[in-house]
């Protein structure tokens, strides 16, 4: 059984009387101990998907099961005790840390909210998690602004992990960090996964990071998963025209690398109302793409693609 199992999930926003379907029928699973990467460009719905799975945004329809339990329809009160098991690491740790609280208080609060341990035990847990994320014990007495960007992300990670969740959703956790700090945080996330047996849903626009960090990768375009495969397959043999365009656009840090022009027209917009959402930018679209919405189709070996040209 998967730790996380999402089925036909929809999330809609209403903006000035117009309904926008940000997540449009997404199904995915994350197995225990697995890291699933979710890539796509801005506006594709990847962050909304992450927030919907954690019920920070309400789904319009569909199912979200964590360790077998349906949470899509639970009220916030019934949901509260289950939040222990599913936590989030945000892109901007500073924006998500209360500047008036010491790091010790920030880390102890989740434990208090969930009624865990005595005061003494909670303090011990705070010190334990600080050590695990590579911060000194005296960090507990300091405030978020006293730390650098990379250290703040360590605090953000500590706060997500202090409750010992099984599922951690990381939303662009290294995107705001300098390159030399990115490697530190990625190594830390790998070590924590190994030590604490975590599962990650890792959301990022950075394909290089996802390639390094994910076991399995989902590619999202305008609210839909258009391709999914294990990490080696996706980079060796990308099939969806959008995935191909996305991969070819990543600048390789090697001047001798022969770069192909990006085979894709225009820019992401709201997409056409019928058929395949990608067809207006697609270099290989046919008449059928305008009429019929492509479904995810298994090419074998769990490599799934939603494209009529590959059926």
């Amino acid at each position, binding site marked *: 059984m998967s730790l996380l199992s999402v089925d036909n999930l929809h999330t809609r926003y209403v903006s000035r009387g117009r309904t926008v379907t940000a997540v449009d029928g997404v199904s995915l699973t994350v197995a225990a101990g697995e*890291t699933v990467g979710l890539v796509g*460009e*801005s506006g594709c719905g990847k962050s909304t998907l992450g927030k919907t799975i954690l019920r920070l945004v309400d789904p319009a329809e569909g199912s979200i099961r964590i360790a077998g339990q349906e949470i899509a329809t639970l009220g916030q009160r019934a949901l509260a005790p289950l939040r222990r098991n599913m936590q989030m690491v945000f892109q901007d740790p500073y924006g998500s840390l209360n500047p008036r609280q010491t790091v010790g208080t920030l880390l102890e609060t989740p434990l208090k909210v969930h009624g865990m341990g005595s005061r003494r035990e909670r303090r011990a847990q705070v010190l334990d998690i600080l050590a695990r994320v590579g911060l000194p014990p005296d960090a507990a007495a300091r405030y978020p602004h006293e730390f*650098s960007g*990379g*250290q703040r992300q360590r605090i953000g990670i500590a706060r997500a992990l202090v409750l010992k969740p099984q599922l951690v959703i990381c939303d662009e956790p290294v995107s705001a960090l*300098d*390159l*030399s*700090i*990115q*490697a*530190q945080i*990625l*190594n830390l996330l*790998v070590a924590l996964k190994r030590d604490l047996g975590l599962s990650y849903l890792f959301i990022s*626009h950075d*394909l*290089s*990071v996802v*390639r*390094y*960090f994910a*076991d399995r990768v989902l590619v999202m375009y305008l609210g839909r998963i258009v391709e999914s495969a294990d*990490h*080696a397959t996706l*980079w060796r043999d990308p099939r969806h025209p959008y995935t191909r*365009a*996305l991969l*070819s*656009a*990543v*600048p*390789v*840090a*090697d*001047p*001798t*690398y022969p*770069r192909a*022009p*990006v085979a*894709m027209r225009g*820019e*992401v*917009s709201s997409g056409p109302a019928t058929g395949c959402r990608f067809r207006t930018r697609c270099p290989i679209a046919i008449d059928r793409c305008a009429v019929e919405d492509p479904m995810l189709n298994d090419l074998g070996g769990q490599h799934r693609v939603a494209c009529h040209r590959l059926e």
Partner: protein
Amino acid sequence: MMYPLLRVEDLTIGFPAATVVHEVSFEVFPGETMALVGESGCGKSITAFALMRLLPPGARILRGEVMFDGINLVTAAPRTLRDVRGRTLSLILQEPMTSLNPVLPIGMQIAEVMRRHEGIGKAAARRRSVELLELVGVTDAQRRYDDFPHHFSGGMRQRVMIAMAVACNPKLLIADEPTTALDVTIQAQVLDLLDSLRRQLGMAVLLITHDLGVVAQWADRVTVMYAGRVVEQAPVRPFFASPRHPYARGLLDASVGHDGEAHYTTRRLNEIPGSVASAAFEHGCPFAPRCPVRIDACRLSSPPLVALVPEHRVACIVTAGTEHVPAVG
């Protein structure tokens, strides 16, 4: 030997509280793309602003010379600067929305540049603006001339900024993180556009970026900055084949994109320990506190930029000491 179009020498920039750019020297030759690369706070953007003499309040050029096209921009009079900016030397920034006037049609903003610098009439400026919009890939340019910035997507706004920047056929275009706010597919399109305009118009580009992939794919030469100093300078091929400064080596090793095959299950990423904040109180080499090959002498004085081979310069006494250094003359 070709003469440089831009020669920056010993440029030192300070705020009242601290000096943020120390003795920066580099050159840009006609028609080339030079990348200025480094992490946030390394001084690359403020260097670019200093070239345009557009420093934020409080910041001052303390020392140094910026020779551009025969003019020393550090001492040039405001009137001279106004004639240079937007004509022979132009600038595009990371966030095109904040550099465009939100209440003026975009075509008019492009036309304004040419009317100011070339004194051409309204109708001619409009005609030229439409041509420029077509040149940068805005479809239906005639109609879009009258659209406002908010009608355009981020990538399209950056194209409009580029049209404005190249309107007067500049000799040098400074592009400060021009694609950092854009998606990766749009980034490739915009940088390809800049590159083809560079060739067509014969201009040089000073490309400021934090992204080594962008440097490798779109630059001819690279200048690496760390904590306000130039630490390495080279053509891109020798640089990526064998970066010489320990910081540059560390950056490439830490980059997930460099070894495309790397996966967390098989290889741990190399880290650069600590953070750039450690450079603040350093008297010697700013990278010494994080450097894996430092020796005691690194802490004594900041290392000069020396040429290992004529075009490959590095500011590291350990590297310079272990490699044959031809006499610089």
